[in-house]
């Protein structure tokens, strides 16, 4: 009798397949149908050039590497070159020299130029992770089109800027 049971089960399997098939198709259609009805509320894409004023990129967006300066034109970069070493494709180059520190009167390593080549950057974020003083951060800008490649080479520290006090003391 076993073979009979099996054949009956198989026969039932045929019809339950049809039932399951139709049911799953209708489930799928109801899900997409819900999306269709809510397209106005749930629209993921945005009307881009029009909403430039109000557009805010999400927090973790990796646009470009920036170096924040405070109101006294002071940054947090000590010129340790950890970012330059961490960068896998030589995007960052730091030009530094030893200058006279006004407070202590000693000669000290200071950055002259923190060169960042956006055109070579793969946005891997290793430099930002490597930075011991949080001098460089992710910027939110993504409108990077320029007419010549040379404009993509940026000097991150502003002219005349110097090291913020107390950054080195923390270590």
């Amino acid at each position, binding site marked *: 009798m076993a073979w009979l049971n099996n054949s009956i089960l198989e026969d039932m399997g045929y019809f339950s397949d049809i039932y399951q*098939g139709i049911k799953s*198709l209708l489930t*799928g259609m109801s*899900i*997409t149908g819900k*999306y*269709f009805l809510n*397209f106005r509320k749930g*629209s993921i*894409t945005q009307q881009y050039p029009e909403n430039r004023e109000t557009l805010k990129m999400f927090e973790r967006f990796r646009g470009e590497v920036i170096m924040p300066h405070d109101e006294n034109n002071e940054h947090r970069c000590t010129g340790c070159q950890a970012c330059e070493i961490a960068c896998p494709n030589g995007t960052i180059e730091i030009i530094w020299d030893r200058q006279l520190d006004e407070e202590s009167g000693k000669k000290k390593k200071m950055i002259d130029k923190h060169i960042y080549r956006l055109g070579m950057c793969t946005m891997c974020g290793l430099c930002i992770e490597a930075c011991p003083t949080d001098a460089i951060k992710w910027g939110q800008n993504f409108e990077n089109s320029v007419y010549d490649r040379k404009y993509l080479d940026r000097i991150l520290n502003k002219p005349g800027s110097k090291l913020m006090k107390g950054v080195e003391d923390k270590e």
Partner: protein
Amino acid sequence: MLLSITKNIHEWLFSLMPENIASIVEMTIIAVIYLTGFAVAGLFLVLMERRIAAWFQLRRGPNRVGFHGILQTIADALKLVSKELTGTIKADKFLYNLAPYFVIITALLALAVFPFTKDFQAFDINIGILFLIAISSIGVIGILLAGWSSNNKFSLIGAMRSGVQTISYELSVSLSLLTIVLMTGTLQLSEIVEVQKNGWLIVQGHVPAVIAFMIYMIAGTAETNRTPFDLVEAESELGAGFHTEYSGMKFAYFFLAEFINMFIIASIATTVFFGAWLSPFGITESIPLLGIFWFLAKTFVIVFLMMWFRWSFPRLRIDQILTLEWKYLLPINLVNLVVMAIVVWLGLTIQF
């Protein structure tokens, strides 16, 4: 009103010139009207598809050209007209150039028999449904020719898949329509509409008619090579499938024909299942001109259903497609045919 205009033009033409020339001129005018409708419908369907696809995917869709993107597809068509017609060196030139016309002319031929409203039917042939079934399978010759003559492996695989698919699903389309013909007793489309004055055939035939409609929609989607069954131009596998080597206007012919075929499948469903130009519940029956509105409204609801399929379901594998047809749709269809025969024999149809 429309009808009196056409009648006046008809009489005016026949009074102006000898009978033979007048009928040729009349045919040309009708052909031009249908061609215009064809192009407009094609462009509109492409736009509709893109907007609906966007809404299903929570995007915004084309909305730059014209008011809310209405002119987008016209701009696309102008771009395609201005493009160079490229071809491969080793292509079979004659067949390569012939293929798009096969596809587009069959699509046009099928449009001629639909009763858009009372008396607005270019060609009321007494074997209307048979004509439609026959015509819809000629379209695949164009696809096969395109795939073969391109001398490209992707094109050839796509074309062969199309052949397999169309030949298989042709059977289900025909049988599901045959189920309905059991009720009407005629193949002439205007007669089928007459029968539906006592209720749409999907209501008259209740259970077997609904099953037939479901089978028709599945098989019809497969006939038009649309997404759950779009193996023919499976982008991830075959590039663009059979029209990989086509560019410019020849590509546009394939593209337009694809959308017009969708419209045709929906029109057949409207005519056969949903009472063609008859208004629901008999309202506005006295104004035949509104029939065009009702016909198009019903058709676009079914077109929307097909677009809904497209953006819901994943693509089937070739063996799954054949299993679906030969193991499921065909046996169900044959049983359904017998059930319908019994329903008609015992007079169990619902008549209003």
